């Protein structure tokens, strides 16, 4: 009996780790969702192009970024899934809500980060006909995030 419980615990913990990654990766295959993934190298090239063109480079000020995801949807199914995940993350005990805004027009904004190790910054937007999530993954501190949001 003890062995069965131990086995279930090991499998459950590995599945929960997998599930955490699947929060964002599942959008790569959902129809009606615009899923953009920019990895470190491409991000460096992109920000270089923006700075050469004289544009702002806000995100690069955050620190060393590994990955950026832009997930957005106008379709019913995709929007519902994004809304659900944003609400789930805002109540997740591993995430800390840094800022929220609820406007009278029904637009809701959420900015949250990991509680223990702030290597993910998530900006979630729920609008009437459109929802989006920007996930920035990298090596940055809480101070970096604070400076970035107050710039």
């Amino acid at each position, binding site marked *: 009996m003890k062995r069965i419980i131990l086995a279930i615990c*090991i*499998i459950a913990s590995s599945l929960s780790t997998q599930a955490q990654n699947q929060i964002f990766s599942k959008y790569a295959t959902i129809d009606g969702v615009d*899923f953009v993934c920019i990895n470190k190298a491409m991000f460096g090239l992109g*920000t270089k192009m923006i700075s050469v063109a004289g544009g702002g480079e806000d*995100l690069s000020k955050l620190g060393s970024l590994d990955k950026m995801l832009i997930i957005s949807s106008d379709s019913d199914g995709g929007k519902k899934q994004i809304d659900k995940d944003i609400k789930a993350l805002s109540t997740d005990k591993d995430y800390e809500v840094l800022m929220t805004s609820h406007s009278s027009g029904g637009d809701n904004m959420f*900015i949250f980060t990991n509680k223990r190790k702030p290597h993910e910054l998530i900006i979630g*937007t729920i609008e009437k006909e459109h929802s989006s999530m*920007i996930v920035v993954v990298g090596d940055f501190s809480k101070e970096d995030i604070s400076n970035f949001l107050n710039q």
Partner: protein
Amino acid sequence: MTDNMTIEQIKSLLSRFYEGKTTPEEERQLAAFFRREDVPEDLQQDKQLFLLLAQTSEQEMPQDIADEITAFVNNLGQSDDIQPLTHVSKQHKGVIYRLKTPPKDKEFNVPEVRTTVTRAPHLLRPQATGFRSVRLNRFWYRVAATVALLAAIGGGVLHHQRTYAPDPFRDTCATPEEAAAQIQRANSMIAKATEQCMAPTSKALQKADAAKQLINQHINF
């Protein structure tokens, strides 16, 4: 020393004896106690068992009988119908076996039949130690097998995911220009979100500034 021992101490010693944890000195104390006439009623069965064990260990056993008993005991350990109940003593290397299902024969109208097998220490110590270590080994073999099975399943799943499942986090932008456009889009979305989140704070700060100016005007006036 035995005379000074209370019944509770004897019972405690007895339970340690059944667990095989007593020292030869403690077993001598128990033997001295059980040889007395005034042993309480609830310890009479233990007295019989203990004296039987003590008597057996003191007798010299012929080699052919010892071999026969060794074979019998080893067969008991492998039988499905009989399970070891407890080791009796480290000194005597005894094992009490219990029949898992009582025999249907009418002669045995008791719910549980116990067979006590004792081994003369000078004859059977190696086999007794081996029997116990085999049981321990079986447990660790099972643990090792469970861990190996889980590791194999986990490794297989991970290997399958890495080999066959497409990486969901591969670059979706083919060119740096495309990436630059997406980064600018993200920048504007973040700017909009932070602006909207900070708007109430900005308004409050503006009101506070206005109030401060008004107060200063009144003070200067």
